[in-house]
């Protein structure tokens, strides 16, 4: 019996399990897997550029799958680059634009961007790039006045996410886009829409962002595939080199099974888009306000109502340390993550919670739960019924320590 087996044994396994840690890892539905299996076992795994029946079959599938994924965004499928993760898409957007456009040197980001955006930008310091960070309000909303101020003739790229991944803030992308383009049509506008795609309506034929990141695993598609919309005419360099393949921006041969899964996840999410939006919003509010009414000293992180992504629940339990919270919840079968320093691989609290002005002890006591199309009311009831006990026990350990 390995040490971890013993740990799991000690931990035990709750009879009821509710997985809400979708931000950190996701499964897929049987239906999505079924869409992938033929490509693993049977056909259409060929290289779509090779001149034989397998290649042509793959090509046919490939074109169709890209169309399916592009459709809800109302973009030309050919403008959608397929990548291997939203992290890669964000790196490609930031580094690819900088390396293809050497004249201007300034990138403007919001303070609450995903670390893949922030770190990509900062990694370019060595190449002479300047990075300006726009602060946010207490709800995490980007300050567009400051954006306006920071824009100048040296500005190459602005990157503002569509929805914040941790606190669910829906950003004023349209407004930011217009401010940027009013200043100078040539400034490139990227939006990381990873946490928005499938959650809130997006139409890039109307809101003409230049680049947009989307991901499969965030809508219960398989991990290992994502997208970057690149508007026609935008100059961008690939991140890595190799053979020429169908994807100009990636030298890897197309991954049919993952693409099939991505396309199926898009179908499932958008076929019931309104219903999923309504249902997750309802469960989200049931959780948020349920916690607030049954558990003292709680604080909602991020905005409320229509300004919040339908799938996002993030709440701070004062007097609780978050890692202890995730462990105690886990023992009751509830799986979530925390912005606490102790749950991360580096011991720093979430940069997003500190950006919205949360005090450290608030950030450390936060719990992030996400809702997907496969979460049920029964699960939420169980969480609401169980969490007061979890919080109570953790607070009993904190005791009288004054924070």
């Amino acid at each position, binding site marked *: 019996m390995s040490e971890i087996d013993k740990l799991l044994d000690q931990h035990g396994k709750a009879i009821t399990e509710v997985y809400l840690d979708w931000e950190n890892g996701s499964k897929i539905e049987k239906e999505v897997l079924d869409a992938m299996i033929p490509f693993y076992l049977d056909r259409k795994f060929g290289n779509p550029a090779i001149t034989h029946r397998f290649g042509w079959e793959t090509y046919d599938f490939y074109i169709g799958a890209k169309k399916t994924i592009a459709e809800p965004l109302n973009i030309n499928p050919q403008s959608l680059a397929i990548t291997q993760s939203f992290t890669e898409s964000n790196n490609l957007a930031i580094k690819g634009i900088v390396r293809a456009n050497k004249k201007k040197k300034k990138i403007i980001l919001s303070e609450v961007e995903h670390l893949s955006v922030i770190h990509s930008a900062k990694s370019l310091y060595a190449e002479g790039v300047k990075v300006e960070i726009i602060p946010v309000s207490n709800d995490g909303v980007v300050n567009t006045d400051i954006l306006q101020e920071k824009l100048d003739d040296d500005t190459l790229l602005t990157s503002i996410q569509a929805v914040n991944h941790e606190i669910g803030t829906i950003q004023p992308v349209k407004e930011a886009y217009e401010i940027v383009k009013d200043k100078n049509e040539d400034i490139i506008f990227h939006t990381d829409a990873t946490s928005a795609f499938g959650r809130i309506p997006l139409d890039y034929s109307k809101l003409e962002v230049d680049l947009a990141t989307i991901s499969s695993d965030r809508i219960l598609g398989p991990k290992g595939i994502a997208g970057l919309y690149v508007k026609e005419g935008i100059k961008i360099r690939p991140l890595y080199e190799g053979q020429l393949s169908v994807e100009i921006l990636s030298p890897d041969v197309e991954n049919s099974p993952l693409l099939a899964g991505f396309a199926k996840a898009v179908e499932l999410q958008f076929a019931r888009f309104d219903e999923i939006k309504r249902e997750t919003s309802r469960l989200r509010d049931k959780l948020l306000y349920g916690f607030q009414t049954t558990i003292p000293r709680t604080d909602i992180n991020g905005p409320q109502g229509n300004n919040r992504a339908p799938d996002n629940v993030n709440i701070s339990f004062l007097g609780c340390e978050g890692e202890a919270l995730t462990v105690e919840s886990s023992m009751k079968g509830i799986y979530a993550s925390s912005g606490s*320093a102790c749950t991360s691989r580096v011991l720093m609290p979430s940069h997003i919670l500190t950006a919205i002005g949360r005090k450290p002890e608030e950030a450390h006591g936060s719990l992030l739960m996400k809702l997907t199309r496969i979460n049920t009311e029964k699960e939420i009831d169980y969480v609401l019924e169980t969490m007061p006990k979890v919080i109570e026990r953790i607070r009993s350990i904190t005791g009288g320590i004054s924070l």
Partner: protein
Amino acid sequence: MSSRIPLPYAPRVLELFQNPQNLGRMEDATIVASAGSPACGDMIAFYLKIDDSDTITKSSFESYGCASNIAAASQLTIMIENKTLEEAWNFTWNDVSEALGGLPKVKTHCGSLAVGALRRAVRAYFKEITKASPGWLPGDLTKDEKHALEEEALAEKLGKKYKLL
């Protein structure tokens, strides 16, 4: 080394997290000390009941911290029961970690915080209660105490730096 493998806890950590020994405020403590800071998300209060022969007859803790922090504090209270202050003083973070089955490296500070709090309590006892320092008590801060203090200093720095991340 191309991968960063953060060893999960040993089972003993979870055992003590689930069932912490010697948890809670001690109303009749001889001395109490705390270490850590809420900014780092880790704080420990350590309570000692000490008899006339400088022996710890009872100890307890409160913890605002992660599972390792809680387990380390609890483990230390078990280890020092009925030990003299000198014996108790000599337990290091390493001893605690070992007793817990080995703490993941990123969790070093959780173990050292417990040791730091205990040593603070011991120093406070001699300073405030007996008002005489025994020969075995080092004048300078020990490694584990420094570690705990560093955490506190770091916390303050972090607090100020947050907006600059």
